[in-house]
């Protein structure tokens, strides 16, 4: 069977604190590194009972990196892992972002908060395939902005913060509205917290454009058996782990 999901005990190569409370954990995982598509995720053991979903942030040779903010027991556990320690990683899972094939149509990345974690790999892959990329990035404050230099390698970036401590003061939807006023013919890729997704989708609807949105719902299994991480599509619930996490904004009732 042509199957590209793996269940491995991966070894931590390094843990980097790239900013206060923001870590990147790198694991040696040749199979996951080889088969990951931009926007996919893994389920990772993190000292809790259930595994936790993590976006795949970057691939470097045989290693996969995961960017996260330390917020609880699971992320705390990961941030304290030492090199050579192993955890169970299951992936890559789910459907990622779909590149249109039309390279004259630019890609517009809209990231909110830790939602940025999925985009370095997306942006690099798109860039290497010849797409023009622009990133709109909103965060709470200056202290919560990560990956900016990295994203700049692939295209322009505009920043907005809730408190105005960096870039403009406000929400990322405002940047999106400005951008869509200038040019609607862009492929919009979105990831961020649920309230941000809601306002971004609302803005897209007002401009009559569809975005590819990476959704997040509380997940138990990550591979389609538990039916927990569902989201409403028409009159049915679909699984964010299998049918998503990236889905078309117009397919979801939000």
């Amino acid at each position, binding site marked *: 069977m042509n199957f590209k999901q793996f*269940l491995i005990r991966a070894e931590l190569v390094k843990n980097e604190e790239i900013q206060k409370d923001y870590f990147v954990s790198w694991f040696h995982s040749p199979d996951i590194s080889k088969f990951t598509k931009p926007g996919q995720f893994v389920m990772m053991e993190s000292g809790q009972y259930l595994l936790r979903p993590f976006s795949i942030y970057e691939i470097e040779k045989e290693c996969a990196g995961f960017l996260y903010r330390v917020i609880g*027991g699971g992320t705390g556990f990961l941030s304290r892992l030492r090199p050579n320690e192993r955890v169970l990683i299951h992936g890559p899972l789910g459907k990622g972002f779909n590149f249109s094939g039309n390279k004259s149509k630019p890609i517009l990345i809209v990231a909110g908060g830790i939602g940025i974690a999925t985009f370095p790999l997306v942006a690099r892959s798109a860039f290497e395939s010849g797409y023009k990329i622009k990133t709109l990035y909103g965060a709470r404050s200056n202290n919560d902005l990560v990956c900016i230099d990295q994203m700049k390698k692939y295209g322009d970036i505009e920043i907005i913060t809730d408190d105005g401590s960096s870039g403009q003061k406000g929400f990322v939807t405002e940047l999106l509205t400005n951008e869509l006023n200038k040019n609607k013919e862009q492929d919009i890729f979105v990831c961020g917290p649920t309230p941000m997704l809601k306002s971004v989708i609302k803005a897209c609807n007002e401009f009559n454009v569809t975005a590819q949105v990476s959704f997040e719902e509380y997940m138990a*299994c990550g591979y*389609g*058996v538990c039916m*927990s991480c*569902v989201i409403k599509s028409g009159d049915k619930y679909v699984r964010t782990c299998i049918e998503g996490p990236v889905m078309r904004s117009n397919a979801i009732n939000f």
Partner: protein
Amino acid sequence: MQLLETKVGNTTFKNPVFLASGTCGVAGRELAPYFNLNELGGIVTKSLSIKPRTGNPTPRVIEIPGCGMLNSIGLQNPGIEYFVKEELPFLKEQNATSVVNIVGETLDDYIQAVDYIKNRNEFAAIELNLSCPNVESGLDFSQDPKKAFTVVSEIKKITKIPVWAKLSPNVTDITQIAKGCIDAGIDALSLINTVIGLAINKWTKKPVLPRVSGGYSGPAIKPIALRMVWETYKKFPNTPIIGIGGIHNADDAIEFLLCGATCIQIGTANFVNPKASIEIISGLEDYCRKTKLSSITELTGQAHLQNQKTVQLAH
């Protein structure tokens, strides 16, 4: 006879390890990439109803740290007809043994759903879910021995397929419900479904799950399940028991067998490790070899015997 071969009534299974209903998608398709589904004793399908059910709003699960999880899926399922048309051919193609799990809100729902499959020969058994805590009236049939008796006897009347009943632990005395099922001619009892539980979010100051309570599963419920298997086996040693509840490894499975179970089902462990069931099968095989058993069936109920001798490991 193979080492792990097991019988429930007159039906022989390759081994005593099954995937539990509701923990392997609709019918195990998502697990097929990790191992051959025909290596299992069997797969118990998602609870299927006569009509499709959309299930409950989210959040549907919450982890209970270190202990397991609470769920309130609400029996989301595509309906029995869809299952037979779209999923059953896949199970047949995989040469997998299947047990079809049926749920209903009323007696008539159960009858209609079973009626739809009663003459098919693909199923090793029908498991009646008498005990879902996450829907209105879901527990009625397993909290009243008379109602349990009625539904089992009505189903037994219409089909020749062996019938198992999956009972709820949310009762004062599970053996009374078991007796209702046995009097109605049940072929095996699946013990246990989830334990009703609740979690509160300290920030919203409300229950986490929209329907307030949910089904508690995972390692924490294993002792509860073992106690219920023990009591039921003690009273009704001739009725096969399928042990379910927090089984994560072969050691857990062996405890259930010694307690009185003939087979076991792997549930929540599948969420954490898709290969849990297959690892348990090889663990059971190891145990049989190490303890020089000629058949795993020798384990069933052994913990009830007086003068048990500690096993000597084979070297």
